[in-house]
């Protein structure tokens, strides 16, 4: 579903943020992006979400390139940024309706989809409260609901459990598993090793704009010759990070 081929990205002429990254994500697979701050995770995900263009290389979503089929890609991806941003004066209800219309979701489907989505995350009692009255976890759940409003086959989640309590976090990971089982292709970036271990079928560790290692959790542990995933991560990071 997602194909990233030798992607480079530089904001300034003398410094490359992404230095040749390639990977592929299939249907029904959760692909984890791990890496320290500044490794280029967010940049990479924003490029996949078509918000930025790679300096060189190619990104294909379901065989489509953002140069030609930008809007078609938009219909296929659901993107969640790592910072929770919702208009404080709006309400979940309004925002859901607003985006439903932008995604051109038929009016007869809208109500059922909203009820289902709100019920799953327990948003329903808060549907008409302003965002500035809602908690961080609630806002994150609403963000997820809205980013998946059009039921996209490709899901790009940048640190979805960041800053959430354990209960909400579990709700989100459960939901991701469910989506995976339904055949969605998911890219996930996270700092939390347990989440990565639990969810990801394939993990790429990004260090300084390059994929330092890639594989399943077990493969990575094996490759680093350590006991735990956490230790493997540190070892890979130390081996590949250039001061």
């Amino acid at each position, binding site marked *: 579903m997602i194909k990233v081929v030798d992607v480079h990205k530089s904001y300034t002429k003398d410094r490359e943020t992404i230095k040749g990254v390639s990977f592929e994500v299939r249907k029904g697979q959760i692909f984890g992006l791990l890496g320290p701050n500044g490794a280029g995770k967010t940049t990479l995900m*924003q490029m996949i*979400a078509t918000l930025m263009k790679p300096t060189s290389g190619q990104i294909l979503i379901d065989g489509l390139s953002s140069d030609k089929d930008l809007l078609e890609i*938009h219909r296929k991806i659901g993107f969640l*940024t790592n910072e929770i941003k919702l*208009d404080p004066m709006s*309400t979940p209800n*309004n925002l859901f309706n*607003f985006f439903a219309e932008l995604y051109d979701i038929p009016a007869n489907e809208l109500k059922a989809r909203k009820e289902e989505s709100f019920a799953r995350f327990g948003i329903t009692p808060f549907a008409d409260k302003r965002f500035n009255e809602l908690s961080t976890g609630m806002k994150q759940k609403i963000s997820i609901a809205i980013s998946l409003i059009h039921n996209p086959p490709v899901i790009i989640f940048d640190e979805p459990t960041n800053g959430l309590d354990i209960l909400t976090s579990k709700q989100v990971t459960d939901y991701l598993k469910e989506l995976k089982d339904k055949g969605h292709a998911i890219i996930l970036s996270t700092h939390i090793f347990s989440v990565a271990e639990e969810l990801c079928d394939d993990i790429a560790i990004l260090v300084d704009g390059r994929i330092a290692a890639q594989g399943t959790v077990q493969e990575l542990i094996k490759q680093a010759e350590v006991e735990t995933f956490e230790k493997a991560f540190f070892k890979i990071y130390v081996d590949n990070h250039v001061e």
Partner: protein
Amino acid sequence: MNTGRGIKAIIGSFFRKRGQMGAEASSAAFLASVFFVIAVACCAASFVMWWFPYHLFSDEVYNVVVVNAPDSFVEYNEETQAHRDELARSYGDRYNYFSNWGHMTFFEYRYEGYGWTEFIYKDTDALYDFVTFGGWMRDNDAYLTVVFPKDFDEQIRLRQEGTISEKPQILTYYRTNSMLYSSFKNDFIDEYLGNYQSKIRADYGLKITSVADSEIKDDPITTVENQYGIKAFADTMSRTFIPILLFVILLYSSMSIGTNVIAGQKERGTFTGILLTPMPRYAIVLGYLGGVVLKTLIPALIVATISSLLVGQFNPAGFLALFLYVIVLEIFIAAVTIMISVINNTVVSAQTAFLPIFLILVAVCVTCIQSVSERDDFYMFLPVHGQFYGIGDVLTGNTNLPGLIVSSIATLLLTAIMIVITVKLLHSERYTVSIDTVNSKEIRRFKEGGKSSPLEILNKITDGFSYFITELFYPLVVLSFYQLLAMIPVIVSYMRKPEYSAFISDLRNVGTISDIFDKTFEIFGIFFKDPLFLSMMTLGYVLIIITYFIHAKRVWKIKGLKNAVASCGFPVTDKKHIAKHYGLGFLFGFLMMSSTIAIMVITGQIKFSGFSLSGAAIGTFLVNLLMWIPQGASEELMFRGYMIPAFNKRYKVFVGVFVSSILFSAFHSLNAGFTPLASFNLALIAVLFALIYLYTGDIWMTSAMHTAWNLSQGNIYGLQVSGNEASNTVFSAVYNENAKSIITGGAFGPEGGLATTTVTVICLVIIIMLLVKKSRKASNKS
């Protein structure tokens, strides 16, 4: 994909109560509504109030009021009586339209000659008192007033003798509530007064005529036409004030709404979500454009409708043209704001970027106003100019259809280009995701280094700047508003007085800025002797004080008016405390001024010529006394009680003292006879008062000092108060011939002299010592 549905959703989001832009209810709409409710009330009131010369609509009238008619003109009227009677007979019954059908054209009554004109003779010294003239015209069914100078015949004689070279002036005032009167007036001036000129030329200037024919062309008199009345007023408003009001409403609301949409969403981080929807970028831009246009058009069209009704435009085609002009203009302005909004990442930076465009467009309006009477037709076809002139044309009933079409197309083309650019910009990641990545990272990096980012510093500066502007300009705006309000009845009453007509004649010779200032103070000098003005000002000062209380309550979010009043420096709970502070303040103020006077007497600058208070002036003196009380209190409230705590909320206390003192000084610097020393003195006095405020914790004392200072200065010792003459005094003081203005302050009054400096410095030393003592006591206690 149904793009239209998405566009509709974006537009809809502007109008949802709790929607994206719901909270951005335009304050311009509210202000405009208030303004126009007042305007409508005034218009309605004009039918019953005495100061309006006549109603909006009336039947045609034919008489002429002649003011100060010279004997020669009366004679001339008698000579023409027979001819006019004959004309009248040929017209038939003047009150029966049907019998006069032959004289009617499609819209206009053909008025030939002066058969129906009767002359009404009046006398007055006030040659510019158009209120009275209007009343005379209304009472006598006249459409024209011809005003002669009192000694007209004498002036003609002297001119023929060559003693004076200036032509005597005849002023005419005519009704403008019907287009007919303009042509009546032209006929009357050209023919009737023209023939009269020939007559006086024949009577006095035969010699000249026989000597050289060319001399005949020299009319013996000049006629100055004065257009006035509701129609003239409406025409002027239609071509100047209403278009600029519409422009400002459109600019202001587009700015507050348009800069908020994309830049605001980028700032809040909600824009990415919209970019990721399958909406094409052009649809996103069109959606926002539609939202801004519709939201802004609400107040603009309300204002346009009401104003066109007010100026008497009831033509549906005219309405349509007006709406087209406004809509096209708004689409253009909205496109500009959205383009700017795309380029910028925060609301503040977008508004800052829009400000120059705002000012440029207002400047274009001003140039349009200046050249409104001699404009080139070419401008009708341009964007912006076309709309400005076009609105004026429509409102005065002369819609220029080619101008409307061409300027609209030109403007829409320009708009289309801007939309294309905006869409292109939206495809660039520099203007879409940069805030999410580069800037926020930068900010984080700076924060980690313990420094503020340039963006934050910029925000801080603009924020601080706007705070200063608000606090500095609030007093200015409030004061000028109430002063203007206080002056309106005074001006109306003065139109009837000869001093005023002399003053207006003088205004014709005003050339330089300093002339304007001189004239302004001259009229203030006249006003300050008028109990009506003084009582109106007293009322004005009271209103200023109330406004400040309400403002403070609102801005500082204080519960209860009593608390708001107290936080403005007027604690009201302890009556004894108030009496003590106010009484002491009055005494101190009087003593300060008295010592200043004493210095001047000792140094031989001044001498007293005795008591000058007459019985009749006692009333005015009392009114003066009453005025100085709220005057002192309001200035203390503005510059001390409100401003110092306002600045203290953000800055160290000396900033408030410093800024308020500078401002206090600058505030008085427009007054007559102002010198650098005067500005220094005023700043010094302001610092003294500010320190007293800090010492006592309230402004009861300084208010009393302020009042006592001004009262004793102007009305007890008889000197000028900050350049304003006060005339009703207990003593009358006279400067000695060799008085040095460096000590006395000259025309500005004692506040401009070294004597005041001396006294103020001594007081400053005392209060600083007291403050130091107080702070020591406080630190000892703690």
